[in-house]
C-alpha cells in the first residue's frame, strides 16, 4: 500500500486561527479514511504572505514558497481553507492559487472549507470558492464545510452538525484519493514533443 500525502492550505490571518483549526480537523477526518501513516503537510499562507506578493511581482517563487507549492502540487489531495472577507475568499488565499501554474491542480482531489462570523455567508463556498477550483480543473468533493463562530460551541446541542459535516467531507476526500493512483509530478521535459512533430503540425 502506497502512503498518501494530503496538503492542507490555510489562509487564516489571526493567530490562533479558526480557519487553521477547521483545516486540521478536516485533515484528521480525511486521514481516518486512508491507511495509517498518511502524511499531512500543513501550509500556513500567513508565513508566506510577502513571498506570495513577491511572486506576483517577479514571476518566480522564493525557496520557501517553492517548497510550499511543491507540497501542494505533489500531494494526493488538497484541503483548502479560507476565512471569508467581503463575502468571498480573502486576497491571500486567491493570490496563492494565482501564482500556481494554470494546470498545477488539474485532476487534483480538493476539499474546500471556509470560516466566517455568521452562517449567512456560507454559500460563498459554492458561488466563489468552488468556481475557483473548477477553473483550475480540480476535482472538488461534494461537501464543502463552512464553520461560523457559533458552530464551534454547538457540537453538543445541535447533534454535532459541524463535526458531522467535517466527517462526511473528510470521508468523501479520502474515498476519491483512495480510488486514484498516487500523484505523480508532471515533467514538461519528459512530455515535450520532438521537433519533427512540432513542425509537422505546421
Amino acid at each position, binding site marked *: 500500500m502506497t502512503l498518501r500525502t494530503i496538503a492542507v492550505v490555510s489562509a487564516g490571518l489571526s493567530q490562533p486561527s479558526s480557519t487553521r483549526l477547521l483545516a486540521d480537523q478536516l485533515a484528521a477526518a480525511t486521514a481516518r479514511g486512508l491507511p495509517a501513516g498518511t502524511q499531512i503537510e500543513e501550509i500556513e499562507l500567513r508565513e508566506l504572505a510577502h513571498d506570495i506578493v513577491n511572486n506576483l511581482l517577479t514571476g*518566480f517563487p*522564493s525557496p520557501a514558497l517553492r517548497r510550499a507549492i511543491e507540497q501542494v502540487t505533489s500531494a494526493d489531495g488538497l484541503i483548502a481553507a479560507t476565512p471569508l472577507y467581503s463575502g468571498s475568499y480573502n486576497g491571500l488565499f486567491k493570490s496563492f492559487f494565482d501564482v500556481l501554474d494554470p494546470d498545477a491542480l488539474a485532476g487534483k482531489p480538493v476539499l474546500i472549507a471556509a470560516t466566517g462570523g455568521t452562517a449567512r455567508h456560507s454559500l460563498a463556498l459554492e458561488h466563489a470558492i468552488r468556481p475557483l477550483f473548477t477553473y483550475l480543473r480540480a476535482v472538488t468533493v461534494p461537501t464543502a464545510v463552512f464553520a461560523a463562530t457559533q458552530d464551534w460551541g454547538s457540537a453538543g446541542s445541535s447533534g454535532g452538525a459541524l463535526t458531522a459535516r467535517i466527517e462526511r467531507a473528510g470521508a468523501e476526500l479520502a474515498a476519491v484519493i483512495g480510488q486514484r493512483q498516487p500523484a505523480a509530478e508532471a515533467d514538461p521535459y519528459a512530455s515535450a514533443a520532438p521537433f519533427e512533430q512540432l513542425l509537422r503540425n505546421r
Partner: protein
Amino acid sequence: MQLGIFTVGDVTPDPTTGQAPTEHERIKSMVAIARKAEEVGLDVFATGEHHNPPFVPSSPTTMLGYLAAQTEKLILSTSTTLITTNDPVKIAEDYAMLQHLADGRVDLMLGRGNMGPVYPWFGQDIRTGIELAIENYHLLHRLWREDIVDWEGEFRTPLQGFTSTPRPLDGVPPFVWHGSIRSPQIAEQAAYYGDGFFANHIFWPTEHFVRLVGYYRQRFAHYGHGAPEQAIVGLGGQVFMRKNSQDAVREFRPYFDNAPVYGHGPSLEEFTSQTPLTVGSPQEVIDKTLTFREHFGDYQRQLFLMDHAGLPLRTVLEQLDLLGGEVVPVLRRELDALRPANVPDGPTHEALVAASLTGTQLETDELETSTS
C-alpha cells in the same frame, strides 16, 4: 568567449530625480552605450525590439545599421527579434542587408514577445506564439539557404519562386540564437537546427534554467550536431559595480527598489541571493559570473544588462568602464582557459564561413557518428 551587453531600450524615469529622458535622448544614449562597449573591449551589443511605450527600439536594423558604421569590431545582435509578429521574409531581407553593411558582424536572437496586444497589432494571436515561432523560423531558415523558395504555411501568404535578397554574405546566414525562459519547445527548436540557445536567466532562479539548458544540450546531441557540451549556449547577467561593495549597494538600491520588472517586490538582498543579479565590487561580479559556468557548463556568450531602471547615461558609461576594464578581461581569460578544446568558441561570421568551406565533410562525419 564572447562578452557583451544587451539593452531593453526602456524609457524609465530616474527614481532619484524623477526625470525621464526623451525618446531622442534614450535612442542617442543607446548609441553612446554601444560605442562605449566597443571602446572598452566588449564583443557584443544587442538591442531589444519592442512596439509599445515605454520602449524605443522598434526598428533594430536601423539602429544596428547606424552602429555598424560607427564601430569596427563589435558584434551587433538583438535581444530579441520578434519571430512571431515580424514577417519572416522581412527579417530575412533586413538582417541579410545588415550583415552585408556590417561585413558579417551580425547575429540575432529570436524571441516570441510576451505582450498580448502587440500580436493583434501585427495581425497575430499570442495564443499561437509557439506555432508562429516554429513556422516563421522554418521559413526564415529556408530563405537564407535556398535561392528560390516555394512556400505555403498557415500564417503568411504563400510564396512561389521567391528569392530573398540580398543573399547572405559569403553564402553564410547570420548566426541565430533562440531565446526562451520557460518553453521546452524553443529549446527543442534551437537543438533541431543546431542553433544557439540563449537563457536570459536574470530575473529568475538558476535551477529552473539549469533544466532548460540541459534539455537543449541533450536534444542538440540527439539531432546529431555534436556532443551535449558542444551546444552553443548564451546567458544573461545583471550587475552594478563600484570599487567598494557598500557604495554599489547604496547607489543602486533606489534603482532596484523602483525597477520596472521587480521593483516594489523582494529586497535587493533577497533578489541577489535568488537570481544572477550582482551588486558589489568588480571582484564580486567576477566570482558570481564564474558560477554560471558551474551551473550550465562551458558556454559561448555572456551578455550583461547595464542600462535599465532609469540609470543615467553617465553612470552606465562608468559601469562599462569597470566592466571592460576590470571584469571582462578576467572572465575572458578564465573562461577561455577552462573551456576544453572540443567545445566551440563564440560564433563569428569568419568561423561560420570557415566551417561552411569544410561543412560538407563535417556533416557527413557527424551523421555517421550520430547513427553509429
